[in-house]
């Protein structure tokens, strides 16, 4: 799957789309592929203050638990409640319907990667 150009990426395989003061966060196609079938998603409560680089939730496959780290700092204003009943959306559409949270941005770290840099990072890490 092509990695959308207009997103920023973390080295822990989250993506973030910043639009004005709001940002949408999810995990990347590479991350969902590594995980396999997602069967449960645990998201932060609305109102929680996220700090970039700190755990904000978990995504679980049949086999394992994977932590999701906040790629940016800010307040959670919405969570994707569809994932409660349909966690498989994270596999099917990681950059779209499988988004995790929307955040009122406080700070965007300067070390997030653009699409090309993330592509290179994944190639080095996974040999893809």
């Amino acid at each position, binding site marked *: 799957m092509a990695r959308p150009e207009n997103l920023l990426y973390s080295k822990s395989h989250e993506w973030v789309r910043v639009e004005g003061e709001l940002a949408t966060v999810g995990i990347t196609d590479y991350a969902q592929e590594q995980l*396999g*079938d997602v*069967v*449960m998603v*645990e998201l932060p409560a609305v109102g929680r203050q996220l700090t970039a680089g700190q755990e904000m939730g*978990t995504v*679980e*496959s*049949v*086999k*394992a*638990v994977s932590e999701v780290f906040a790629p940016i700092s800010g307040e959670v204003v919405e969570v994707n409640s569809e994932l409660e009943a349909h966690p498989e959306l994270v596999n099917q559409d990681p950059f779209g319907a499988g988004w995790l949270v929307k955040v009122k941005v406080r700070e965007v770290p300067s070390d997030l990667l653009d699409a090309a840099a993330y592509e290179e990072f994944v190639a080095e890490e996974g040999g893809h």
Partner: protein
Amino acid sequence: MSSAPAKRTPLYPVHVASGAKMVHFAGWEMPVQYRGVLEEHRAVRTRVGLFDVSHMGELEVVGRRALDFVQYVTCNDASRLVPGRAQYSGLMTPRGTFVDDLLVHMVSPERFLLVVNAANKDKDYAYLCAQAPAFDQVEVYDRSAEYAQLAIQGPLAEAVLQKLTSVTLSEIKYYRFVEGDVAAVRGIIARTGYTGEDGFEVYLPAAKAAEVWQALMQAGAEHGIQPCGLGARDTLRFEACMPLYGQDIDDTTTPFEAGLDWIVKLEKGPFLGREALIQQRNAGIKRKLVGFAMLGKGIPRHGYPLLHGSEEVGVVTSGTMSPTLGKALGLGYLPVALATPGTEVWVDIRGQRVPAQVVEIPFYRRKK
């Protein structure tokens, strides 16, 4: 884990060519999934799945006193076997705990084929060799490298396999085996499995494994056969509550604690661990392997603590989101007083106490 390079089964090139995701398991490079654990799991429950389980160990016990030897090292009663029958059993320490769990196949009273866990094969072989000198005329051979093992499992397994063999499969009952041909390759066909479904495990010369695999895939195409990896193998065996060595049982647990009383035959005569097991039977077990269902949100995983009140009373040995039942389920050891179905306990899921309830096992039992 040893630092030796991972071993590969004869089917490794086939797995890679068909896009399987490979992982390291018990010193082997094995397919964990082809299309996804859930899809593969469903294929086995509803149609048919094909597994490469060539990592499993095959040890042969040969000699005039082979039966006596097998009786001495395992806890089930091998004298109840006749040629062509297999038995689930435990290889026992003197403490009555598991060196391994295994399948004992009686080829003849003087020849047994023991199928053991990949991770334990070298340990088992050394253990058997150490016991063998006490029995004159018993030899133990490690045949693991010579055999490939394929498991074809699911309600349509017989229909698919029948297309490729002259053996009348309907005549092979559960836990029986015959020597026979599969796709013109001579091997052993056993009606056994580790999925909770009907099916067969086929032992073949390693060099012929790839051609038999391809033949089975072709024969099964019209039945929707799905190649399956270790991921689905684990979720399938978990729902059927077949124990996994290293998680649900190990050399600290006894068959009584694991709920495997039916494989312990104390009356059969002397065997390793018998005294310890008699003592435990008389004194009563203190903990028991139970199944539980989550009442709150969360998936129990191996190693998570089990709580009662504020006290840590046990540990989760296996757990997942059950694909068939759609519920988060677990297996774990609890004190006997808390092992009754209906008892409420808590699972410490990464620092959060989540309620769960002890339930009857197995979680899944196929309709016959």
